């Protein structure tokens, strides 16, 4: 990743964080922790990797993204609004009655959302189905899983199946923020070494710092070039609530409240961060 693209991507990540905090301030609560932990990945995908057209969200040749941890919708909505898929003013409508931006991703409501998710594990299989349908036409299908989500058996059904069906255009990520709703993943249902598990299933596996945009970018490019007909899994070490100290510090930060005062403090903190 060249320096210029790196700076641009970091700047975009900052904009996504700010937009999210504004969304949560308007609503007063939300899935803040897990949205912030995938923010740098979302920035990399939309700033420097994916092929898409905001004016034609269903453009056939676009790359697809399935955010299987559907509660990270706010991170994705912020990126899509900033990229012009829909007006920025929509962000104020998160989770309000009649909104196009529900808490969990909905492909029938939000321009730019490729798959409806929310019941954990299911995006894994739908992403595989999309990649099988698109195998001959060359689009990539990106899939974002949570580490808690990997508790679901369906993820591991898909992990077996994607190798069998040679889903080389499927590039997955696991957001290892080490927390799930009830606590630390190791205390609730310890997933152990997730990368080793995917690797032994036959995936082309890499582990990166999920907040280092350059590492993420290089890992995706590496997967595109070297996985061949194997599906790829990029396991990301992340921090739940990343970029906002007052969220990071909360032990159980899956779904939390955010006061106007806290939001202002968060915005000040994000603005101070250096690229």
């Amino acid at each position, binding site marked *: 990743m060249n320096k210029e693209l790196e700076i641009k991507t970091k700047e975009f990540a900052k904009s996504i964080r700010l937009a999210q905090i504004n969304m949560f301030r308007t609503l007063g609560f939300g899935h803040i922790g897990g949205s912030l932990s995938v923010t740098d990945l979302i920035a990399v995908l939309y700033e420097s990797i994916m092929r898409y057209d905001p004016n034609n969200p269903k453009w056939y040749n676009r790359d697809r993204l399935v955010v299987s941890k559907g509660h990270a919708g706010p991170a994705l909505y912020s990126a899509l609004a900033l990229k012009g898929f829909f007006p920025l003013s929509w962000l104020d409508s998160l989770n309000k009655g009649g909104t196009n931006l529900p808490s969990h991703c909905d492909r029938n409501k939000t321009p730019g959302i490729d*798959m*409806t998710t929310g019941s954990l594990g*299911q995006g894994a299989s*739908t992403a595989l*189905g999309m990649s099988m*349908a698109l195998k001959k036409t060359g689009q990539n299908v990106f899939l974002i899983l949570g580490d808690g989500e990997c508790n679901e058996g369906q993820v591991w059904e898909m992990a077996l199946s994607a190798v069998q069906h040679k889903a080389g255009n499927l590039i997955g990520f696991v957001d290892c923020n080490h927390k799930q709703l009830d606590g630390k993943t190791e205390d609730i249902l310890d997933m152990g070494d997730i990368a080793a598990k995917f690797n032994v299933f036959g995936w082309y596996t890499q582990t990166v710092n999920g907040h280092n945009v350059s590492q993420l970018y290089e890992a995706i490019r590496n997967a595109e070039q070297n996985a061949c007909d194997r599906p790829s899994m990029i396991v990301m070490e992340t921090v739940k609530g990343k970029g906002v100290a007052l969220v990071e510090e909360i032990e159980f930060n899956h779904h939390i409240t955010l006061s106007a005062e806290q939001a202002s403090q968060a915005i000040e903190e994000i603005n101070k961060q250096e690229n």
Partner: protein
Amino acid sequence: MYELKSDTIDIKNIFPQVIESLFMEDENVVYLDADLMNSFGTGGLPEKYPDRAIDMGIQEANMVGVAAGMSSEGKKPYVHSFGPFVSRRVYDQVFMSAAYAKNSVRIIGSDPGITAAYNGGTHMPFEDVALYRAIPGATIFDIVDAAQFEKVIRMVRDNEGVTYIRTPRKATRKVYEPAEIFNIGEAKVLKDGNDVTIIASGFMVAEALTAAGELDKTGISAAVIDPVTIKPIDASCIVKHAKKTGAIVTAENCNINGGLGDCVASVLAANYPIPMEKVGVQDEFGEVGTIDYLKERFKLTSGQILKQVNKVIGRKAGI
């Protein structure tokens, strides 16, 4: 009046030719199975159509999700497994990845109810219709015979949303000729009648026709209706015959809770409440046995229909 005949063609032997001809007609048609191709006559297809006839292994949840993902990219998936494994086992995948996400998946659940026979209670879905009825926009077929099966498989190719087709695999009593035309939400009046209406689906249609023949001999004129789709239900046909005959008996190879009978009862309650009785499984689990044993065990017979007809006619007369 439709005549009952015997049929020697196993439904599972029809499916390979039908799906193959659909492959020819439409490049987007795909067929996924969960390690039951050899039980459904399609074992030879993956070799011939590796990208279109796909054995997903024993992974029903993943299979339904993959089918939903394929639908979002324009494919027209048919998926098959035994009834319980493409209904209760994958209910959330069918509900969210397919129906809620507006992906169109055609789901074939074979061996409905007691037709699971020697596979027993674990494989014997009495609840699948109730489950699918609760999914907004779902279409439900309870297959009567081979001719209907072939027509239904073809006609749902472009159907939107979730389509559930519960079908026997083996030969059934023959009710329909190959030329019969079916439409979603359009019931078939197989026999007209004045005194009572029997609304039956699946193999209970044959039992209903047999019962109606017996009733004729005793001077009771019974209409027999196959709803074709349990959802959407042909309410106007039901109401018309309710008004004409004043009494209804439903007959289904399902739990009476949530199945065809409840569906008909909802139509009557809202439009024209009259005496009605159900023939069906009385809130029990399945068990092993021959079809003939299980029909008697769960009272899914023409004899039971006759009993309920006599009861409902008594109620109509205020006895």
